[in-house]
């Protein structure tokens, strides 16, 4: 019997993977061939999805991108014995895009059946938890601190310091919140983890709970991720059944309960205090800090709020030690970051590498340039609140401090490429529009300034009174930067001003005077 793997990742499904799987089963049946189709997470080489992998004694051979119409010819070519075919790609793990990565967090994704606990444990799963259960909370936190792990949601705050604060804040009840509201355009690494390896997140949260004495965890999941919702719920149910969640975890006497809570389409609920308000059943208004969530968070209790990737990186740290993780990376950016290449790019996908790769290497060595073949004019890194980078900045290494130094944002690692048909003034106006749509309404500059910002940019685009309106736009951005409680208002000026500064011609600004 031959085993085939076809991804059930929602991006693969969006490209037809379910239909391909059904066609493969049907065709094999008609030909009397003994095959088994397993559904896995995606390897993250999305220009090759739907990918069909065939298990051979040499390893898994990949074919892709496969459409339903290709299925008969694949069988004709004897692909289940590794036969040659125009869509044959060779061994999956020899593909350069894959081979050049350092997959620590994504180690299992694409290899295992996402909701199979047996697969998870057979692939080094729950070794971190086993170690953690034998340690004191302080020791667990020390490993995380030593690893240099920084918040992978985007703020890059040292995770160990956050955990330490919660550990040292006494309380009857503490919480672990996973921020799974991955709202940035160009990002999908959280989604891939939740769909492709949900147990690694569950394990990370459990370790966190044990470390700081939190018995309850919530995964705040964006409602736009129904596949992730299903995968998480299935994995959580199985974890409870096998004693990896609940009271007396693995006979340790320790308790950790976990459930998923759905968001409802508000980008601002990706901000940690807005997220907590939402979990408490309220409008997602942003809170003042202090108090920090680590001291007074969900329902006023000490709370860890961490991104999916941060939590999913914890098991390997507790399995192989903080030093292991820290030895990848550069400067103060330790470990790996799963970068997400998206937009107008030839080879979109998931690239997990140690910090230090440059944007240019990512765009061209991995990405292959634009999808359209036209020049890449601008790249937005770090989501809708990240700056647009022109070609002159492409040699910046993908490192938190290197990006901050050029007033750009590495953030959650999302990278959206645009070719030269993009109108950067339109993109700047969209940034204001997005702020307007998603504003929680608390701060006047964000609530009202976003609408005014759209109007001013429209005036500029239509050539009205640039000498007044360009300085006005800059002044508005200054107010947003300095007068906002959170990053939605506070960082909307990043894409707007970077577009204005690097692409003045798109705004109709020709001379030096106009750009003042």
């Amino acid at each position, binding site marked *: 019997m031959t085993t085939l793997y076809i991804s059930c990742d*929602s*991006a693969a*499904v*969006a*490209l037809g993977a379910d239909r391909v799987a059904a066609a493969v089963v049907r065709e094999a049946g008609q030909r009397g061939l003994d095959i088994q189709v397993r559904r896995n997470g995606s390897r*993250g080489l*999305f220009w090759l*999805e739907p990918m069909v992998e065939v298990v051979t004694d040499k390893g898994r051979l990949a074919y892709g991108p496969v459409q339903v119409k290709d299925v008969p010819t694949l069988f004709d070519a004897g692909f289940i014995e590794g036969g040659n075919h125009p869509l044959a790609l060779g061994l999956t793990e020899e593909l350069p895009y894959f081979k050049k990565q350092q997959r620590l967090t994504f180690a299992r994704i694409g290899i295992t059946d996402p909701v199979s606990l047996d697969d998870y444990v057979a692939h080094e799963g729950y070794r971190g938890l086993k170690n953690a259960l034998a340690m004191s909370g302080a020791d667990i936190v020390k490993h995380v601190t030593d690893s240099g792990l920084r918040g992978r949601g985007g703020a890059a705050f040292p995770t160990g310091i956050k955990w330490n604060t919660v550990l040292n804040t006494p309380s009857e009840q503490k919480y672990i919140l996973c921020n799974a509201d*991955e*709202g*940035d*355009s*160009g*990002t*999908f690494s*959280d*989604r891939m983890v939740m769909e492709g390896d949900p147990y690694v997140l569950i394990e990370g949260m459990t370790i966190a709970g044990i470390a700081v004495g939190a018995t309850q965890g919530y995964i705040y999941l964006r*409602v*736009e*991720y*129904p*596949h992730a919702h299903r995968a998480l719920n299935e994995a959580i149910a199985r974890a409870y059944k096998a004693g990896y969640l609940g009271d007396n975890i693995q006979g340790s006497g320790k308790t950790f309960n976990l459930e998923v*809570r*759905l*968001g*409802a*389409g*508000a*980008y601002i609920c990706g901000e940690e205090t807005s997220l907590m308000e*939402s*979990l*408490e*059943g*309220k*409008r*997602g208004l942003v809170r003042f800090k202090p108090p920090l969530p680590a001291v007074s968070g969900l*329902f006023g209790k000490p709370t860890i709020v961490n991104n999916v990737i941060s939590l999913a990186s914890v098991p390997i740290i507790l399995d192989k030690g903080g030093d292991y993780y820290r030895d990848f990376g550069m400067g103060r950016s330790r470990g790996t970051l799963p970068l*997400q*290449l*998206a*937009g*107008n790019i030839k080879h*979109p*996908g*998931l690239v997990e590498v140690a910090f230090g790769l440059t944007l240019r290497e990512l765009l061209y060595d991995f990405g292959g340039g634009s*999808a359209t073949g036209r020049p890449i004019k601008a790249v*937005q890194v770090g989501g*809708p609140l990240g700056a647009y980078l022109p070609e002159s900045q492409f040699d910046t290494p993908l490192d938190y401090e290197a990006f901050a130094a050029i007033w750009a944002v590495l953030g959650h690692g*999302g990278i*959206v*490429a*645009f*070719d030269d048909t*993009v109108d950067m003034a339109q*993109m700047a106006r*969209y940034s204001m529009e*997005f702020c307007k*749509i*998603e504003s*929680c309404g608390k701060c006047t500059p964000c609530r009202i300034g976003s609408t005014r910002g759209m109007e001013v940019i429209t005036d500029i685009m239509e050539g009205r009174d640039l000498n007044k309106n360009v300085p006005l736009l800059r002044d508005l951005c200054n107010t947003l930067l300095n007068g906002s409680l959170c990053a939605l208002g506070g960082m909307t000026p990043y894409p707007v001003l970077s577009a204005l500064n690097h692409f003045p011609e798109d705004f109709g600004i020709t001379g030096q005077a106009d750009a003042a």
Partner: protein
Amino acid sequence: MTDSGTIQTTVQEIITNLKGLPGALLPILHGIQDKLGYIPAECVSDIARELDLSRAEVHGVISFYHYFRDTPPGRKTIHLCRAESCQAMGAQVLEEHIKGRLGIDYHQTTADGAFSLEPVYCLGLCACSPSMQIDEEVYGRVTSESFDAIIKETEASA
């Protein structure tokens, strides 16, 4: 169509089942919308009473979140992504085509009740932009042609 009495019973059952949860309001609203397709205005006072909130507070939560709707949707809801990655791959052109093909704007429903159109800001399908979701089905690398084919297929199987 469900009448007022049935709506009230359905809503009450959902509230009773979920009100014990910490932060119960969003799970209750999701429960109601999952069952009825929307959150009828008449259940605001029931929710408020059961959770000991004001009607204004409940209304405030429903109106804050883009996902919750207070009118029934079409038989299927198309969520079209408007965010940056999809824009980089032609979402604006696609958007114009879709609005023209269906004859509606965002937050509207076709006259025959078949489709509602809603904007969405990121489905996490950025590696296959432009993307959309129709109820629970996801679609990537959508073109005007593939959209028309999908709609035709959806209408045929309705």
